[in-house]
């Protein structure tokens, strides 16, 4: 599904990713582990087109991502959950979730909403609240819901369990496991190993922007 071949990415002339390679096969859940500053977020942002690799390729189903503008990537069915949530404060929870659906030409709003609420009933309860009032963890949930709304093929989740209470993080893990049964591939970054180990099919470890290993738990 997604293969990353030796990409190099620099931010303001500092090399952050140096020759990173990994593959995310169809219908799998892949973990990405690394310490703070290893480059996990940078990789995600490169995939979403906010940073341009100076070398290497990123292929999504054989299509070179670098030929697509940032907003065209979401339309391939990639859902991205940012590390810092990135909700639009003025909009309600539901509107936030619908945002990528509106931007897409193919998705149906009611269908996607039903799907998201089915998986995350917690969100449904607060769907009319404005995003700016939510607590940190609640925002995290909504951001996940939003990624789910558009990510029909691939989900990129940047530290989804961070700051989430254990009860909920257990629920999330279940949700994500459930998704694995569908057509989706999931790519999860983690600085905390505890949560993901149990659920991923394959885990890459990076350090200072380069692969140092991969395991199949």
């Amino acid at each position: 599904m997604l293969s990353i071949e030796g990409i190099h990415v620099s931010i303001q002339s500092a090399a952050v990713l140096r020759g990173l390679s990994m593959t995310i096969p169809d219908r799998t859940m892949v973990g990405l582990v690394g310490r703070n500053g290893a480059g996990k977020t940078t990789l995600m942002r490169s995939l979403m087109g906010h940073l341009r690799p100076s070398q290497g390729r990123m292929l999504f189903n054989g299509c070179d991502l670098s030929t697509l503008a940032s907003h065209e990537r979401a339309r391939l069915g990639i859902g991205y959950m940012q590390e810092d949530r990135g909700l639009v404060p003025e909009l309600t929870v539901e509107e936030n979730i619908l945002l990528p659906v509106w931007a897409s030409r193919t998705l149906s709003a009611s269908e996607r909403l039903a799907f998201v609420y089915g998986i995350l009933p917690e969100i449904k309860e607060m769907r009319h609240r404005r995003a700016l009032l939510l607590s940190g963890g609640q925002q995290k949930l909504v951001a996940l819901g939003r990624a789910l709304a558009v990510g029909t093929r691939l989900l990129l989740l940047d530290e989804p369990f961070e700051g989430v209470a254990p009860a909920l993080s257990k629920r999330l893990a279940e949700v994500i496991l459930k998704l694995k049964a569908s057509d989706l591939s999931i790519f999860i970054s983690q600085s905390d190993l505890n949560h993901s180990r149990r659920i991923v099919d394959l885990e890459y470890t990076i350090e200072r922007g380069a692969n140092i290993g991969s395991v199949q738990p």
Partner: protein
Amino acid sequence: MKAILEANGVGRRFGAVVVASDINVKVGPGERVGLIGSNGAGKTTFVNMITGYLKPDEGQIKLAGTDITRMNPRVISALGVARSFQIPQLFGDLSVIDNMLVALACDASRSGFLRPARDPLAVDRAEELLRRFHLHHHRSRRVGELPGGVRKLLDIAMALTARPKLLLLDEPTSAVAADEKFQMMETIMSALKEDPDSPVLFVEHDMEIIERHATRVIAFYSGRIIADDAPQAALAQDDVRRYVTGELATE
């Protein structure tokens, strides 16, 4: 025992959402209190009310006997309450060392126009703190470019510059790499050795850390305190297991 922090019947609502109701807490010297709770339970709100960012609708908050309910964050900070933030609040355009120097310069006794902010004493103190938090090698990087975990550390280091009488940490270890979390808590706790009487309240989602570092746990759910006890006891309560740790299924 004299309470350093005392909250009596504190309540707060936003429109129809009750974010704190009838909160009663007394914290004595040297206590290490873990604040746990589901997302949106009101932990941050509690911290915000103690530090004056939010004013309670009802009830009273006292610091070492002084009523601080209506004071603003600056005055409360000046009284010796320091905090860190769930989302780090830093000076993104300045370097790491300058962030620390700002924190030192804000110390009331040190402000002024005609002295250098970067005098050797201040710089030494700042560097010592940075070293303690393993931030020293980031010394001259612009804070805006730091990865999330490092920002978190710096945020806490800044809270500790003033040698607080009461320390509040909002999710100090979230976004910090797993193997560093424990070390980090050690660091924080050891930084407080100079003032062993200062109580620490920290919001935490990781129960291992709670078990290891808290002497007492307060669990929140939906704006209320559902448990306030020693860690083992608190974590064993049904409500806590149901709503916080998820060991019991809801309903």
